[in-house]
């Protein structure tokens, strides 16, 4: 099936709108993706036709809602090729997932243990571990970057030891788009008996991860990065780990029996899903996966790579253009500066032209510190973007530079 971007754009209502008098050019896809009508409709359909609280309801629409919620879990299971759907915890997103694991490991680690975190991480992948280490005394070791924005693999191997209990790496860096060699990271970490958590938030809209093949211990993502709604995400955890971890939050749904003397917890996955979950979010998440799988991840990757190469070549012609992150394997993200201009100025002018990009540190201050810069402009492309938009972006960028210089 040929990849017809104009037809695909019809699926996204927001792409028809104007911003500041210009047609919206949305190049902030790494922050969040736009939503196709199918996802939006599934949300409206839920609230219009079968809104109800799930599990244990004896009435019909509760059963419908429960089925739809559990169907979504199955879709996630199939998409990520997970063995058992009980290993999929529906969370509010990646940050929630990471905190859940960090909480679970608080009592599993002690002061002689070490965890490895890459220098490429998003703040949300650093702070929960610092909080955990304050409690159990474990130590954080940092896997450094190379000048190309890749993980220094040799340093990673040197840092690994019998003390290493956990390794946390993102699948794709949000600031630079670097695709990390997670398969080899996972198998090396396993040689030392360490568990591995991969933050897939930036990867999931570009790469279909096969979690059994990766043999990863934990993998997490947020639906809103892959055309789904905000406030919903998933945590995959191997059963053996999830069973070792205590519940994260107490409440309804996560219990088996409650008396004032003692409560016994529900089995997986409910043990980690206290309270009424984001039912409609899960349904939208499932629909987003259907939508992307229908397009096909091979086609998406092929087209996005074409956009990335096209944009990179065009941008390189602009005097003073400097790109950060030149990893051999990267997603359709270009993080850059122009001469001495501040990213905030460039972003402000581009916005006036109707172009949405992100500016600043991208929640990855350590990455910016590494390059000795205060921030970058980040343009991130999705399969619904076009070469014409990139042309307009480059033209507008040149005008912005002329205005600011």
């Amino acid at each position, binding site marked *: 099936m040929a990849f017809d971007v104009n037809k695909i754009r019809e699926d996204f209502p927001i792409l028809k709108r104007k911003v500041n008098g210009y047609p919206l050019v949305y190049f902030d896809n790494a922050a969040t993706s736009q939503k196709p009508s199918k996802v939006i409709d599934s949300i409206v359909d839920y609230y219009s036709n079968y809104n109800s609280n799930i599990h244990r309801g004896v009435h019909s629409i509760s059963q419908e809602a429960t089925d739809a919620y559990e169907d979504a879990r199955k879709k996630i299971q199939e998409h990520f090729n997970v063995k058992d759907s009980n290993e999929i915890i529906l969370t509010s997103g990646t940050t929630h997932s990471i905190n859940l694991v960090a909480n679970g490991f608080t009592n599993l680690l002690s002061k002689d243990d070490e965890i490895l975190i890459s220098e490429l991480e998003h703040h949300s992948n650093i702070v929960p571990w610092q909080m955990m280490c304050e409690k159990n005394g474990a130590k954080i070791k940092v896997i450094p970057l190379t000048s190309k924005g890749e993980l220094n693999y040799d340093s990673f191997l040197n840092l690994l030891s019998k003390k290493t209990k956990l390794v946390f790496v993102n699948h794709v860096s949000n600031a630079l788009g670097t695709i990390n060699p997670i398969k080899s990271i996972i198998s090396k970490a396993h040689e030392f008996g360490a568990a591995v958590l991969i933050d897939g938030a930036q990867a999931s809209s570009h790469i279909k991860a096969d979690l059994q093949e990766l043999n990863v211990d934990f993998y997490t993502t947020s639906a809103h990065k892959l055309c789904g709604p905000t406030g919903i995400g998933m945590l995959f955890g191997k059963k053996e780990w999830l069973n070792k971890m205590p519940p994260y939050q107490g409440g309804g749904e996560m219990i088996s029996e409650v008396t004032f003397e003692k409560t016994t917890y529900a089995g997986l996955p409910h043990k980690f899903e206290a309270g009424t979950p984001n039912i409609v979010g899960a349904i939208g998440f499932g629909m987003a996966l259907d939508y992307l799988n229908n397009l096909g991840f091979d086609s998406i990757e092929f087209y996005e790579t074409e956009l990335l190469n096209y944009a990179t070549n065009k941008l390189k012609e602009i005097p003073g253009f400097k790109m950060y992150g030149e990893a051999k394997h990267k997603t359709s993200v270009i993080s850059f500066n122009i001469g001495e201009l*501040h990213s905030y100025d460039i972003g402000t*002018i581009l916005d006036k032209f109707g172009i949405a990009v992100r500016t*600043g540190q991208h929640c990855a201050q350590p990455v910016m510190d590494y390059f000795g810069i205060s921030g970058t402009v980040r343009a991130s492309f999705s399969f619904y973007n076009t070469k014409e938009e990139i042309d307009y972006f480059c033209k507008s960028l040149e005008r912005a530079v002329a*205005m*600011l210089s």
Partner: protein
Amino acid sequence: MNIIEVQNEIVEEFSLFEDWMQRYEYMIELGKSIELIDPSNKVDSNLIKGCQSKLWLHAELNDDKLIFKADSEAIITKGIAAVLLRVFSNQTPKNIIEANLEFIDKIGLKEHLSPTRANGLLSMIKQIKYYALAFNKN
């Protein structure tokens, strides 16, 4: 000139522009011509929070008037600072406290006033008013 006169003058200047681009070009020019803060005052305690680019603001009393100086890494932020300094610098604390801010809307900068915009305009106005309160003797 008093604050109202300066504000009117700025509103008149901005009214000559036909589109946002001319407005921004003018602001960028103002940013380039701003009288810079003394390097010794570019210290963390003079940093304005809530801005994506670093923005410094320094105040000192000269006779009965407050003199503000500012600088920023970003030229648009510097331009916004230049507009504010033209209005508020070299005025008495009392006049600064009493000044209203309607001119910001009139010159098309209202969008920058939202607290969620990461340009620090709102924080800068707050800081200017705080200084005025602190230096106000009455």
